[in-house]
């Protein structure tokens, strides 16, 4: 870490360091930030922006940037802030890391921070006529300012860029989203293949897609804002309502983050059960993804095959957790209750059935000449682009990015298990599809090992240690990431160490994988056909509630 500090000091004058936390924190002024960002990427190889957390520290507004070096898996985070609350402005890094484009739009939406030189400074989630920026601590919640609007949201025909000239003067430049003579078609918000309420404004030339403008926020629930009004145990339930296909995994992540902050040790059995639930969830998610991908290409029967096997997994959840979706099973310090007596038997059965039926899936769909023609070479995403857009999970690994958190930063008990990280290099829809199919085999492998381990613990039913009844975190911030079904899911918690009995998080940010995934829709769909747009979005496989947190 000291070495890294020296290197960064050489890059920019007087950065402030704080190495007390889990990752090195670098604090820089906004004036130096863009130059430092370029240097960090090009000289120190911090090529991936994992998370961008907008922050309101009351005296200042700013952002936390979590950066990863994809070669060494080193993580640092950079704090950039401005004290101007009236017109906060930071320099955009969307030209350095492409993923910052949408991330900065989100920060602008919720904190009102304007990013200079950002190509498309519009709100991302809220309506364009929304008053105020809700995650700011001085936000006015008066319902008269933002009444329930019964009129349609105006179409945003114009976007703007805040351009800085040589003298440092910033001016707003308007530009059009689509030209007048473009044939723009709305795909969504209600559309069978957007997998939820998502809208793509698509410019077409015949059947060819020329540009996709993603309009999001139709089911945004303001989970981050809601969390600021809840105690820590209460916030847990929201994690399951983001990516409902990774409910256990997301909840596990928040639990891990809070446990890390409190220094709670989780019983081995509880951690094992959580891990098994995570893998079952991943299996079910990939089965759904298989089903939806096939369905979007018109192979309706394959869809039912995927759902048939998914039912087995939901039955397991049902018996142990008492619910099929939104299980609310993991809790701070362990799990709510021990597993059902037949759990291991059921899991083994499900593993056998799914393993057997995976062959059938390949026979029905993978080998089909139409399916192959539809997917091979469609929606190419190179390794560099995947890193640039911080694409993780199966979609990232299909482009050859080594990004499985279970391997790169092993959490929970994953270092005790033997499994392979599935990688592909083609980066097309077929590769993304195949990575998922092969990952299911790995999940089955993990589950079988876990079953043996769980059986070895017979008689031990200790799954929840004593945790304080009132969870109070010390002042500080923590970041925890896990491998969710669709990519790296991260939780950022900042606590002000409030001594009041029912402590609430000062800021809680969820870095959802799907938010990054939707960022490549425009890139991958350009110059492909409408049918390819559907294939590509299905193969990238995002869940809308995870984007609209």
């Amino acid at each position, binding site marked *: 870490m000291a070495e890294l500090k020296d290197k960064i000091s050489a890059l920019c004058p007087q950065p402030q360091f704080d190495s007390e936390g889990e990752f090195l924190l670098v604090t820089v002024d906004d004036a130096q930030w863009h130059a430092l960002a370029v240097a960090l990427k090009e000289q120190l190889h911090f090529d991936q922006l994992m998370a961008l957390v907008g922050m309101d520290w009351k005296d200042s507004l700013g952002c936390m940037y979590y950066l990863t070096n994809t070669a060494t898996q080193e993580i640092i985070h950079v704090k950039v802030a401005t004290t101007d609350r009236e017109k906060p402005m930071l320099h955009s890094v969307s030209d350095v890391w492409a993923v910052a484009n949408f991330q900065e739009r989100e920060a602008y939406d919720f904190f009102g921070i304007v990013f200079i030189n950002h190509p498309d400074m519009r709100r991302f989630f809220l309506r364009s006529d929304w008053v105020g920026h809700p995650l700011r601590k001085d936000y006015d919640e008066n319902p008269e300012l933002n009444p329930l609007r019964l009129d349609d949201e105006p179409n945003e025909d114009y976007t703007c860029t805040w351009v800085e000239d040589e003298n440092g003067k910033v001016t707003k430049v308007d530009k059009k989203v689509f030209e007048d003579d473009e044939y723009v*078609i709305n795909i969504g918000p209600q559309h069978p293949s957007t997998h939820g309420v998502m809208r793509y404004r698509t410019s*077409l030339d015949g059947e060819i897609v020329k540009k996709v403008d993603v309009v999001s926020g139709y089911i945004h629930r303001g989970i981050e804002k809601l969390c600021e009004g809840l105690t820590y145990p209460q916030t847990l339930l929201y994690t399951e309502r983001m990516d409902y296909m990774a409910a256990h995994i997301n909840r596990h992540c928040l639990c891990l983050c809070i446990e890390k902050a409190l220094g709670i040790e989780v019983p081995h059995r509880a951690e094992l059960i959580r891990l098994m639930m995570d893998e079952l969830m991943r299996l079910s998610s990939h089965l759904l993804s298989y089903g939806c991908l096939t369905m*979007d290409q*018109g192979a309706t*029967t394959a869809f039912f095959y995927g759902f048939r096997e998914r039912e087995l997994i939901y039955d397991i959840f049902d018996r142990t957790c008492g619910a099929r979706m939104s299980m609310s099973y993991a809790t701070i310090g362990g799990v709510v209750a021990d597993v059902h007596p037949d759990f291991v038997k059921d899991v083994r059965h499900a593993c056998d059935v799914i393993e057997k039926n995976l062959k059938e899936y390949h026979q029905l769909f993978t080998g089909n000449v139409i399916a192959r023609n*539809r997917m091979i070479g469609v929606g190419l995403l190179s390794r560099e682009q995947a890193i640039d857009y911080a694409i993780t999970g199966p979609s990232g690994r299909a482009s050859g990015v080594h990004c499985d958190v279970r391997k790169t930063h092993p959490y929970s008990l994953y270092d005790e298990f033997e499994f392979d990280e599935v990688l592909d290099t083609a980066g097309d829809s077929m590769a993304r599809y195949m990575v998922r199919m092969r990952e299911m085999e790995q999940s089955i492998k993990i589950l079988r090992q876990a079953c043996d381990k769980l059986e070895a613990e017979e008689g031990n039913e200790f799954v929840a240690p004593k945790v304080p009844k009132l969870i109070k975190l010390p002042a500080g911030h923590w970041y925890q990431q896990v491998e969710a079904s669709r990519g790296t899911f991260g939780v950022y918690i900042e606590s002000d160490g409030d001594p009041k009995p029912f402590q609430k998080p000062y800021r809680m940010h969820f870095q959802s994988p799907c938010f990054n995934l939707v960022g490549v829709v425009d890139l991958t769909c350009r110059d492909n*056909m409408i*049918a390819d747009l559907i294939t590509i979005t299905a193969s990238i496989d995002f869940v809308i509630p995870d984007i609209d947190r």
Partner: protein
Amino acid sequence: MFDFSIVTNWLNDALNGAMPSWLATTLECVIVAVALLLAYSLLAMFYIMYERWVCGWIQCRRGPIRVGPWGSLQIFADVFKILTKEIITLWHTDKFLFFLAPFLVVIASVMTFACLPWGKGMQVVDFNIGVFFIIAVSSIGVLGILLAGWSSNSKYTLIGAMRSGAQMISYELSVGISVLTMVCLAGTMSITGIVEAQADGWFLFKGHLPAIVAFIIYIVAANAENNRGPFDLPEAEHELTAGYHTEYSGIHYGLFYLAEYLNLFVVSGIAALLFLGGWMPLHISGWDGFNAVMDYIPSLVWFLGKAFFMTFVFMWIRWSFPRVRIDQMLALEWRYLMPMGLVNLVVMAVVVTNGWHF
């Protein structure tokens, strides 16, 4: 085998004896039309149920089972529902064309439907150019689809209409060529003639390789012609929500639906006519006892059985394959199917002139 023309001739004579001939002809037309329309709607209902049962079976589920025995009354419930739905008229649409379109589609399918060889002597008219007539009237359908997409004033329907225009006109060629191949083998365009020519063996078995190739081309092209998966691009639910009929509601939508299922029957019927001997029973030369038993089965049953079998094949394809993309679909037709069909036609001509067929 019972010849249905005995009944029709008797009816004709009886009517002509009792009234002037113009009235008799008019009355006959009315009787035929009523019978046909009745058969049309009953078959459509049966086909919708048939598709549901087959598709449920393929997809490991039970399909409609609640209403009536094996869900057989489900379709009546659905028909009543669709009849009571409001027909929504949109702003800024060409109302005349918008309302005309579903009827054009239905008219096309009723007219082709009327020409099918239902059984021995069971035919509306028997021209010498029957096959030609079928191909001609079935093309009216594409006009209805294009109009529907165009007059709805919606971008989705427009894309659907453009796709269907490109698709149906392209695949009509392949259908036409494979039909021609079989006409070449039969030596006649008359529908009865084609069926009679298959008395000693169905064309699929009689015509050697070119007949089998023509059969495969016909299955692919007819699927496309019918807008059914894997060629359901004009509807392409996952891309265009419902394609050309996105904006239709109530019975207007129902008419498209009806025509789609009846077209499925029509193409199956034509396949049965051209390749599987129409209403001709299965005869194996030498097996006289077997042939005699086969003759006892009524010709109508033979025809419907063959048509339902072909439909099953079409459904099997639809529920197994993913959808092709527009460029792949056009490439398949213009680069592979049509050249193959043309070569096949020449091969068939050579086979026929040299008498190499059975």
